């Protein structure tokens, strides 16, 4: 068996597509990919795990008589390429034998080129000692604070090199970098424990992002707040105004807007697992999703964000479009297979696979809440009794993305316009469109954060997707809050 390196990828792609073409497929593409990932994980002052992962392989996707077939292998050899290409054809033929409606791809211009996300310092070239020393120092400082009994600190970097070639003529090379880091302190006081986190956003930059983020400076605040959280009183159930910070909002947007705006869910493709969507196609352009303050923009062109990869796995360029305009539901995340079902003539370029081993599917774009005009202080000043929430905690939402419940990482009582003492066990509940109707203020662009996810689960077999959800602080009026404790 002859294993072939990156310099031969073009030849391997041609070999695969020749087999697909000669078999009579109407469409075929191949993704050849090499992914480097480094994960460093610290726990309780020690570096518990250092792992350097290399993941190489290819996937061949074909359309034959209107039905999909896909086969993939981590054996990148001249023997394996034809086997996998033929297998993809065999699979598509069997699917086609019972097809009721043929898949037809929305036309798209042919693109050829290279996408490289910028970085100043390659995280894989940074000496390991520098990275582990930073994590160890971070945990050491956390444990200097009274009450801190456990700590975690992590650093993650990923470089994704990929070639996408299609029978239509698309030829796209990718070199995509991303990094992230964060830490957590757990305090124990009077028999109660509580954790507080600090997370850098996942962004497509180099190690410079970690260098700019001063972990050590943040340790004191995080440790102190962990202890304060452990000693904080539980929230009283009731109706509160909420102010949510950008990191927290990233999850709220993801669950209550991002997933419902995936067209495949709305069409029932995820009914057996991730669920469907309350934003059904007849609502497009006719449904009030939120207040006039709410503008949710999908933007896969913003540099450094996770879904800004130049092109998706259909070979469609990344785009910017509206999901919700002044409260009105106006757009979906789509791909070439499904765009026409809602009358679109072109895909929004949201078809992505986790890796070479997975078939692409519609994924949430970089959907963000457009900035408003207020400052955070102004949002707080107009609240008599409310709660300010930072970070992620418990989250759960029904399979139509309608009924949700969120916690957070840290909570402060707002009294007469001022953030006062910490609370614990805050849980708020809502119905997605009703909740967004209660948004009456969004902070300006100076408050904007760009948090996102690399663990968004969807599909069977399961895949993870990556996306960023930029947001500024936002205020929501009269939200039901319950204490996160078991009823006696």
């Amino acid at each position, binding site marked *: *068996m002859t*294993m072939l390196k990156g310099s031969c990828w073009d030849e391997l792609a041609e070999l695969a597509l020749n087999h697909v073409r000669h078999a009579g497929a109407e469409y075929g593409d191949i993704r050849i990919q090499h992914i480097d990932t480094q994960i460093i994980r610290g726990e309780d002052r*020690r*570096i518990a*795990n*250092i*792992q*350097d992962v*290399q993941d*190489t*392989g290819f996937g061949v996707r074909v359309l034959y008589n209107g039905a*999909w077939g*896909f*086969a993939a*292998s*981590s*054996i*990148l050899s001249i023997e394996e390429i034809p086997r996998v290409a033929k*297998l*993809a054809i*065999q*699979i598509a033929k*069997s*699917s086609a034998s*019972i097809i*009721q*409606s043929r898949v037809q791809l929305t036309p798209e211009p042919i693109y050829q080129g290279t996408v490289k996300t910028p970085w100043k310092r390659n995280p894989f070239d940074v000496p390991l*000692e520098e990275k*582990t*020393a930073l994590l*160890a120092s971070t945990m050491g400082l956390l444990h200097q604070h009274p009450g801190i*009994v*456990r700590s975690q600190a992590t650093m993650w970097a990923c470089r994704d090199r990929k070639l996408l070639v299609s029978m239509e003529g698309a030829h796209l090379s990718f070199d995509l970098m991303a990094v992230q880091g964060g830490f957590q302190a*757990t305090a*124990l006081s009077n*028999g109660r*424990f509580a954790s507080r986190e600090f997370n850098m956003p996942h962004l497509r930059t180099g190690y410079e992002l970690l260098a700019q983020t001063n972990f050590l400076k943040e340790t004191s605040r995080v440790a102190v707040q962990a202890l304060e959280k452990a000693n904080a009183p539980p929230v009283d159930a009731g109706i509160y105004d909420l102010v949510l910070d950008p990191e927290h909002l990233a999850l709220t947007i993801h669950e209550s807007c991002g997933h419902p705006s995936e067209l495949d869910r709305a*069409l*029932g*493709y*995820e*009914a*057996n697992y991730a669920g469907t969507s309350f934003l059904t196609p007849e609502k497009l352009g006719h449904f009030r999703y939120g207040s006039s303050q709410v503008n949710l923009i999908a933007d896969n062109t913003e540099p450094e964000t996770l879904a800004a990869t130049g092109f998706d796995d259909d070979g469609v360029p990344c785009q910017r479009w509206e999901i919700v305009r002044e409260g009105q539901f106006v757009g979906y995340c789509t791909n070439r297979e499904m765009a026409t079902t809602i009358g679109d003539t072109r895909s929004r370029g949201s078809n992505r696979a986790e890796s070479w081993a*997975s078939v692409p599917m519609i994924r949430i774009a970089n959907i963000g809440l457009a900035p408003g005009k207020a400052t955070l202080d102004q949002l707080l000043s107009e609240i008599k009794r409310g709660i300010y929430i930072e970070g992620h905690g*418990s989250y*759960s*939402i*029904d*399979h139509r993305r309608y*009924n949700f*419940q969120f*916690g957070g990482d840290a909570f402060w009582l707002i009294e007469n316009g001022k953030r006062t003492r910490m609370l614990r*066990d805050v849980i708020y509940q809502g*119905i997605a469109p009703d909740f967004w109707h209660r948004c009456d203020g969004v902070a300006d662009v100076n408050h904007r954060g760009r948090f996102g996810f690399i663990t968004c689960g969807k*599909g*069977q077999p399961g895949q993870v997707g990556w996306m960023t959800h930029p947001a500024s602080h936002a205020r929501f009026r009269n939200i039901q809050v319950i204490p*996160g*404790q*078991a*009823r006696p």
Partner: protein
Amino acid sequence: VSSKLPQNWPLLTSREEFAFLTHLVLRNSTGEHASVLLQDHHAGAVRFANNQIIQHVDTHKVRFLVTIGFGRKHASASTTDLTAGAVRETLQRAESLARMAPEDPECLPPPAPQHYGLWPTFRPETFETGVSGRFHLAREAIEQCQTQKVQGAGILTSAVTSVGVAANTGLFAYEPRTEARFSLTAQTDDASGWTAAVHRSIEKLNVVNRSLLAIGNCKRGKGPRELPPGKYTVVLQPPAVAGLLHGMLNSLDAKSYEARTSPFSAKLHQAIIDHRFSLHNRPDHPDMLGCGFTREGLPVTRMTWIENGLLRQLAYDRYTAYQKGISLIPTLESPCLEGEPRDQRTLEQLIQGTERGIFVTNFWYIRAVNQMDLTLTGMTRDGTFLIENGKVTAPLRNFRFHDSPLRAFQNISGYTEPQEATSAESGKFLVPALRIQDFYFSSVSAC
């Protein structure tokens, strides 16, 4: 553990080939400690929605992980390429990182050679199911949905993985494992029914019978009523019980227990659930996904975790186990919750004995709300019904629950014998259906 792979496709890494790869690493390693983990995975899936195949895939993926230690310094590197050059390069990466790693006070050498149980991990009928076999089974489910005029969405998969663990201590373990899965959601405009199965043998999926079950529940769910949130008696089907139990078992790690940051702190050998119930690990059970060894090469064994309601075990990492003098680390990949046989009833008897309650098929999106008291939340899904005067009388809109299994499992008023259960929220369990008093639903979903 020894089990020979048949010599037809898929050509997975054999025991002899894994031994060769191990030898290649150990012979060239300069580390004081060296260990390897192989996962050679070949899987196929047919996914369908709206009674049509939407995804049909076949994937072969290898992962080979090398871990090297120099004293208390250690690091790992992995590759998907099993050629000799790539394996050597992976070893060099692991060694290079390990040399630069800081000392880890909890670093232990790899385990010594172990004795493993011979559990039934490999079923040839699953191994031999290829594209055609998966397609025909999926088509059977689709055809049932078409015939019954419901929209079916589901998946049929079969997979085989050769798994190996070895180390320079002489540790060596290898076994092939098969797994087949089927799940189906049958839908109409306002109702859905669901089923799921996972087994080492694809012949145990019972695709047609399960499809009819899901379709029947879907049809019974038409025109759901809305009830207010509050405390209700619930009859939980085994998948719903598995979801709650899974949420509880996730919090049993010993390190948190020792640091007193666990909901089970100070509860070892104390009552945590109804005294009639015990939880065992059953890797030997023919319907469970037992395996011979863990990723670290430790043996998987039968073990009692909860005995007559008393917590007897914690989930130990190797270092904490070493500190506590525990030589056989308990594992829990095949959990079986069983109530005393004399009180077991049938599901029908549980319903008949319920004056007013809610029948729950499954829970969805279960998440921890409070790590102190283990409060969980989640939604009911794919079949929620009202029970009145001992009969299922009406379909209901879905509820959100907000309760702790530590409280709920103390309020059990009836149960069946254990049955196979799996869901998106859990692995595979053997658990009974349970009737629980005063289970708290905090809100209702209007759709």
